[in-house]
């Protein structure tokens, strides 16, 4: 124990000899670890948030008008216009299907708001949507008074952003006023930023009578999905897409980008390994005489190997810790960069750094140190004592 402790002490103090070299080497490792951890965190956070968004839609399957099903699903998830429309009578055919527990028709509409210099998103729904999302709770007010009332229920953030309260009126572009009858509690999903109106009201306001953007469907048993899809195939002008497939497709696209970024991060890590190896090799070269003296004072070849490896591993672990701190400190920057770069971003946090990731990052750092230090350590331990002592003579 005394031996290990002593060798560790010498290794630790060796790092203070050339502070600039130590700092630059640590920064090299830190950046590589930070990039890797951030990418991993983004992958995990994105997946968690996407899963949460999909879960909070409350349905397993989406029936939309024919077109790109993933585009339709994404637009429905994040809000937006430009969708194809389908006829409302499809709903009657769907609800009669034995696999369907509930079908929630929706019509999405967009209106330019010059005061915000942006778009307002409106979603027409009926009570089925409400029933599919039992986690939706009113912060104030309540549900529409009638299926065609000129009323709105606003998501938490939509109300905050527009500073609306129950009783306020929303002035539409055509001069119609819509009364806010309810404000929802925050649920951490896309619905927070949405303004809901009765389905018939949106159809009338946006001149889409009997039209729907899509129908969210909850199946009695998700295992019925293949058979249900088969039956829906015969419905004219429609297509069925499962939310699991949507999630899989979005994650697939994000993963492709992530793989490329990870490749860059891996290169950064390899460069860091060589950086540490170079730094340690230089350090060993400078201390050749000292290593010889340590051997003459009783240190064995194993002690010298341990000394150099400790130094390398310590350097890399410090780099790992700094890298993790950089990731945690810069996660908001990484998140905003990711949001601007990704076509679709879920509402929750995009970066999720778990204690497990931090553990792996530090372990990875230690491994970098071990890989980088092994060769210089092996060489140092094999130096003939006399040659080492007299190298600089």
């Amino acid at each position, binding site marked *: 124990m005394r031996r290990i402790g002593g060798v560790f002490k010498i290794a630790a103090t060796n790092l203070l000899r050339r502070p600039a070299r130590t700092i630059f080497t640590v920064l090299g490792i830190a950046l590589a670890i930070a990039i890797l951890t951030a990418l991993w965190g983004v992958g995990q956070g994105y997946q968690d948030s996407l899963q949460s968004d999909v879960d909070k839609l409350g349905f397993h399957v989406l029936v939309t008008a024919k077109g790109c099903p993933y585009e339709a699903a994404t637009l429905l998830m994040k809000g937006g216009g430009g969708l194809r429309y389908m006829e409302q009578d499809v709903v009657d055919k769907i609800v009669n299907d034995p696999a369907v527990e509930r079908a929630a028709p929706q019509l999405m509409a967009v209106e330019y708001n010059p005061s915000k210099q942006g778009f307002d998103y409106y979603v027409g729904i009926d009570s089925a949507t409400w029933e599919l999302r039992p986690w939706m709770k009113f912060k104030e007010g309540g549900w529409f008074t009638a299926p065609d009332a000129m009323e709105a229920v606003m998501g938490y953030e939509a109300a905050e952003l527009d500073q609306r309260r129950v009783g306020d009126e929303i002035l539409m572009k055509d001069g119609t006023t819509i009364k806010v009858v309810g404000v929802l509690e925050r649920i951490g999903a896309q619905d927070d930023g949405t303004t809901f109106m009765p389905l018939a009201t949106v159809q009338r306001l946006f001149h889409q009578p009997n039209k729907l953007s899509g129908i969210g469907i909850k199946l009695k048993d998700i295992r019925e999905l293949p058979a249900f899809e088969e039956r829906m195939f015969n419905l004219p002008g429609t297509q069925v897409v499962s939310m699991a497939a949507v999630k899989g497709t979005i994650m697939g696209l994000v993963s492709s980008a992530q793989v490329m970024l990870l490749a860059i991060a891996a290169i950064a890590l390899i460069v860091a390994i060589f950086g540490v190896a170079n730094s340690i090799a230089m350090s060993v070269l400078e201390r050749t005489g000292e290593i010889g003296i340590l051997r003459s*004072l009783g240190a064995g070849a194993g002690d010298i190997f341990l000394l150099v490896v400790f130094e390398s591993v310590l350097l890399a672990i410090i780099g790992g810790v700094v890298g993790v701190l950089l990731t945690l400190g810069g996660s908001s920057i990484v998140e905003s960069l990711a949001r601007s770069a990704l076509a679709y971003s879920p509402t929750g946090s995009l970066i999720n750094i778990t204690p497990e990731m931090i553990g792996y990052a530090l372990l990875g750092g230690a491994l970098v140190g071990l890989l980088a230090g092994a060769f210089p350590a092996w060489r140092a331990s094999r130096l003939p004592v*006399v040659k080492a002592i007299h190298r600089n003579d």
Partner: protein
Amino acid sequence: MTDNIILSCKELTKVYGLGNELVHAVDGVDLAFAQGKFYALVGPSGSGKTTLLNLLSLLDYPDSGTITVGGTTLQPKSPREKIRKDNISVVFQEFHLIPTLSLRENVQVPLYFHKGNHNGRVDELLKLLGIADRAQHKPRELSGGEKQRTAIARSLVVQPKLLFADEPTGNLDSCSSERIYEIFRGLVDKLGITIVVVTHNEKMAQNADGVWTMTDGKIVGGAGVCA
């Protein structure tokens, strides 16, 4: 010679290749060292003193010949690390102190690699060598003489029976050199350590219990001491 011999060598030879030539750095040397005596090895530069010291201190392997330490005879290829660790310490012209450790921590370094209880030994040595008041200082804050005394304390902390010193005063002024000699003398007289010094320092050689002169790898003059 009596059976008080702690170290001896017989027909010790070390040959180096220098270009196409073979240099006999140590050429058939026979020597014996008694316990508790102070020896000097002198001779012109390149005569093979340091090579002989490296062989006798078991830091290097001879090409032929034997070395006997405390009754154990080592053949040219015999492993010698353990015997060296248990019996021998070496001091060099270059101090090679670890710059990031204090004087006291430098002296403690060999204890990491040796078993046994050496508590109190460090303080005792620092006092004996007159550097106790500098114990917390880093090597860059020490004079050349203090550095060499630290290196000597470091080599003595594991209580060796034999101390080899290769030009220990080579980097020191005359005053510091004098002090080192007095320390060596005291170690021999008070602690009974055997010291072998390779030196150009005349005073050190004159006051040694035994002096050997080396030229071209051979012992050409001087005499050892019968205990």
